[in-house]
């Protein structure tokens, strides 16, 4: 336990520092609360709605996925410490384990568990070129690059990933 004693001492000092700061602030700071001052901050507008009670489910999904990876890390650390003693058996075991986790990870991504934000709409490829002929010498500004509304053509998000090959 002697090794952890200084950490405990630092903990005490840090908590004391925070508590004393709050005490000092209580003594020094003015106190003049008004109803408007205590209202939630909405850039000067009177808040009309309660803060949201529900959240996009993706945030929960991320939290759950994190647990999967955190547990994987928990198993990887002991192997990283003792890989020399475990030898080939340890390597194969950890490979199998990682492959299983990775496989479910790929499945989740393919099911769209980690899709955020809008899909990238590809406008460049579908640019309609308005030819300048004798009939239409007027070039409409702002229509270039717009796809027709009758048949929206969208391409998949061309991910910036080069994937794990690096």
């Amino acid at each position, binding site marked *: 336990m002697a090794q952890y004693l200084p950490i405990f001492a*630092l903990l005490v000092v*840090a908590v004391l520092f925070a508590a004393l700061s709050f005490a000092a*602030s209580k003594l020094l700071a003015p106190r003049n609360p008004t109803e408007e001052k205590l209202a939630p901050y909405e850039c000067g507008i009177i808040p009309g709605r309660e803060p949201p009670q529900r959240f996009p489910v993706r945030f929960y999904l991320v939290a759950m996925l994190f647990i999967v990876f955190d547990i994987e890390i928990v198993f990887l650390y002991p192997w990283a410490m003792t890989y020399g003693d475990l030898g080939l058996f340890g390597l194969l075991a950890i490979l199998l384990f990682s492959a299983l986790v990775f496989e479910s990870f790929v499945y989740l*991504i393919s099911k769209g568990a980690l899709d*955020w934000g809008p899909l990238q709409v590809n406008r460049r490829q579908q640019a309609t*070129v308005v030819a300048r002929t004798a009939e239409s010498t007027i070039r409409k500004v702002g229509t270039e690059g717009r796809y027709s509304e009758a048949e929206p*053509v969208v391409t998949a998000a061309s991910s910036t990933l080069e994937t*794990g090959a690096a």
Partner: protein
Amino acid sequence: MTNFLSDGVSAGDIVLAGIKAVIAFVICLVATMLMVWFERKVVSRLQNRIGPNVTGPFGLLQTLADGIKLFFKEDIIPSRSDRFVFQLAPYLSLVPAFLTFAIIPIAGDFSPGNDGTVTLPGGQVTGFQVADVPAGILFFLAMSSLGIYGIMLAGWSSGSKYPLLGSVRATAQAISYEAALGLSLASVILVSGTLSTSGIVQAQAEGGFFGMNMIVTGFVPFFVFIVAGTAELNRPPFDLVEAEQELVGGFHTEYSSIRFAMFFLAEFMNTVTMGAIIVTLFMGGPSAWFGLYFLGWFGGFVWFFAKLLLFLFMFVWFRATLPRLRYDQLMDLGWKLLIPISLGWLLVLGGIRVAQNGDIGLFESNTADVIFVLAVSLAIMAIGATLLQKAITNSAQERLASRGLRSVPTQQDLAASTTEQDGGH
């Protein structure tokens, strides 16, 4: 039966612990103060401004002046907030920031034959760190996770829209990047063979300049760690947590006076600590490069400080130059790039090490085994990358299909549309 708590603790240990804690506390505060000044000054110069230059020499005391000012400001606890949690959150943010510093060796003589410790007049042997615990890395991970609680509870207890959104974002971001952080850390543990920070520094010191973990682990974990560390700190370009244009001030919108100062202090203390952790894990900490040891333990401090300054400047440089990421880009970068890469790299590194130890034994020589491992891992990584790419494309197509949109146009589609247009005229 001896008491577990007091086992092997002498009066000298307690005194030493107290002294160390106070010194570490002062170093933390002064370093944070100077870091705020440094950041403001460097960002100013990069933006062609002068920055703080009135308070004290070169404006050095600006942070102190700001801190004192905050003591005299009214402390507002919003009427809709959860009072207890609202008051608890700054503690949860600040205390872990202090504690992380405990595991960093900031000085010491790591020249050959020395392990960075000194013998005090009282006969105690100690290193230049608050506590040289055997599980230092795990302690760092634990503390960085605890810090997230502060942010999350601060936003949740404010009873307001922007802080809540900011804190949910912050939590999702921090846990996403924590996985990448932990995986790249595993590579360091693998090559150093220890969880103790001073042990990691010593393992690097033995190899000299090329013994640095940055080189030994093959650069990839180093870069992953820098990106994940910056995201973990919620610093630009990953500062969506307090994206001013969208969320006002993020999770600490409702905080004022000294409570706000606590979050601010914790943020900058974490920046300094993260820089120090990178130096310790990847750059050899207080050990000298090219065998340039001098002045015993003080030389170690000079080396440590020089390396630390490099990374602190890097963090500030990031802030001044890089635009903020979009939230989906942030999540994609963390989950679909950094995590697979760092996992794959760790396994390849492990495979090579096992082959070097001669534990595979497929071929006569270990070198042949290493080459075999490299070939196999290249194949496996290619398969993994293909699978991941397929999964990403598949999910995008499913989303398109669910909206009744045409999926990715093929080359034929494009060619057809061009000919149609040509024919029209």
